[in-house]
């Protein structure tokens, strides 16, 4: 079958069709890695690009992501069997005091889409937890998200905590979220700010490279 059709249906957000097509591709004996890359990830990266260019908006991305997750669920056991290796490791979370995770989940999805392994620390994550997990899990990048102007300040504490733990030269810190911008990133001494999930994934890949 043509894996491009999976990509097209994913972009249109048709979760049930995507699921059916992925199963069909598996049944036809197409390797899981190929279905993932040429079907699901291809579709998601096109949505990501369009999102970056303001051609599509958050709901389309979330609806497409929902379709992707249903396809990935079918592929996961097969990918684990094949022992595919990640190109880098990232821990991600919404900072302490903040419970908003829609944006964080989108970035996580895009990072996974680029073949990175992502440790999801959830919401309301303390600076200490970010640093502790980065050390324990040997992550190259810490990604911090915040939606509130009242919680974005915690990102500065994450940078300080990384300095205090002596890992600042080993771990890159990326920040994102509605109230954050490049000026804020420079001010707190984080490594990178990106304005959308697709750009965040590109940035993470280049930082891991």
């Amino acid at each position, binding site marked *: 079958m043509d894996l491009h059709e999976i990509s097209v249906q994913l972009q249109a957000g048709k979760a049930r069709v995507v699921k059916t097509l992925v199963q069909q591709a598996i049944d036809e004996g197409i390797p899981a890695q190929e279905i993932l890359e040429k079907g699901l990830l291809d579709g998601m990266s096109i949505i990501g690009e369009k999102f970056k260019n303001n051609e599509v908006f958050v709901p389309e991305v979330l*609806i497409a992501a*929902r379709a992707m997750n249903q396809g990935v669920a079918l592929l996961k056991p097969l990918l684990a069997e094949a022992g595919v290796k990640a190109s880098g490791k990232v821990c991600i979370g*919404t900072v302490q005091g903040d419970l*908003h995770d829609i944006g964080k989940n989108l970035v996580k999805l895009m990072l996974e889409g680029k073949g990175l392994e992502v440790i999801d620390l959830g*919401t309301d994550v303390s600076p200490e937890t970010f640093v502790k997990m980065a050390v324990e899990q040997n992550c190259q990048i810490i990604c911090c998200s915040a939606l*509130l102007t*009242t919680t974005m300040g915690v990102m500065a504490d994450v940078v300080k905590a990384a300095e205090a733990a002596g890992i600042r030269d080993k771990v890159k810190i990326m920040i994102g979220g509605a109230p954050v911008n490049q000026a804020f990133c420079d001010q707190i001494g984080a490594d990178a700010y990106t304005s959308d999930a697709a750009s965040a994934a590109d940035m993470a890949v280049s930082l891991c490279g």
Partner: protein
Amino acid sequence: MMAELVIFQNGASKTVAFTGEEKLSVLLQRAGAYMPHPCGGHGSCGKCAVTVTGAVSEPNDNERRAGVRLSCQITVLGDAVVTLPDSPRDEQIETETGGLTGALAPMPGQYGAAVDIGTTTLAVKLFDLKTGACIGTAAGLNPQTAVAADVMGRIGAAMAGSLRLLQGQVTDEIERLLAECRAQAGVAGGPESLVLTGNTTMLYLLTGRDPECLSHAPFHADTLFGGETALLGCRAYLPPCMNAFVGADITCAVLASGMCGKNEIALLCDIGTNGEMALWKDGTLYVTSTAAGPAFEGAGISCGCGSVRGAIDRVWLEDGQLRVHTLGDADAVGVCGSGLIDAIAAALQSEQIDETGFMEDDCLPLSGSVALQPQDIRAVQLAKAAIAAGMEVLLETAGVSLGSVDTLYIAGGFGSHLNVESAAAIGLLPPALTGRTRIIGNAALSGAVQALLDQNAHQALDRIASLSVHVNLGGSPRFNEKYVEHMLFGDDE
């Protein structure tokens, strides 16, 4: 060196003097000019466009991106002239409170007033406490909107040193509205007693209390009010809030609905920038709140506006064509919340929008130059998904199926004008409940009036608050799952 800024608005001008350089938004606030900054002055929403000439800063990146000068981004360097969009002086604010009985055990004094402090609007009713008659009604915009449109923005501003400013803004406006009521009634003095309701943040700002505890998780309010104090030179009763994001306005709305007095399963929903919900089942009131964003109030919608003259408030399909009605039958200037919901419902019916929210054409023309853009549909999807998912998770948590809900009460200004059929068609409200939905107007104000005219109601409000159990949606995986599901308009096949 002294410089002057001349401000034109509503066909009149004002002048404000300043020295050195000053942010335009600060000068407008100082001059008392109405200019909302929906995104809190971040330069990201593009809604505060103005025309400006004279000694001002060059357009920055945000302004170049928006293609207009933004009042929140401009620094005034010397003499300058700015023209602002007209303020919505004829904005229609919901003050209808439904049927009321006379005074039973009223609060003390000759006159008393009930005040609903909304995030966007204020509503006041003045009563003769001896007869229980309403003798004056007034409504206005909450002047704090100029600082930030949403509660979080205001909490941030209060923490950054603007607490006294925010408090002064709201008390000044209440004073003004009370004076308007007195003029209507032809009375010189009073009121002696007040009932002031509003969401938790509004009561913090009204009483000048530091809202730091409301600014971050676990969002634990260090007071929930619910008692008498002295405010504005009156004896003031503040009804109890239920938690940081389900405030006294909802406690009052629940009282006004009478839902806790009946042996039924009832759901109450106040749809606004925040959607607050309360579910009554077997003596427990399950409450929650969800952030819908300002789409239903017309903000963040390209052609969005409040309920002003010329706002498209009704849209329907006739012979396959979209038809519109505007407030005051004027030429269309924009679309308000109820019109927005109608328009999308009609476009789904005519298949101009598909179930994923995709629009085949570049835009959806409504009337004249007013048209909905693809991103407007997307903004509504985000907002309605937050409400619908919140409602579903609340019902699930309480173990209630839609079929067993006896009544759905819709409270608040937006809900008062809502076409329930359209709301169900776009999935904002459950289609199964359209036949069991009751629109109850500004129920927060109704509840406050009850508390003013009958002090026994204070106990009833305390009881409602004490029976409440908060259902937290923040970071709930179930909510996230439902949120994405409700992003769609109907089934995806």
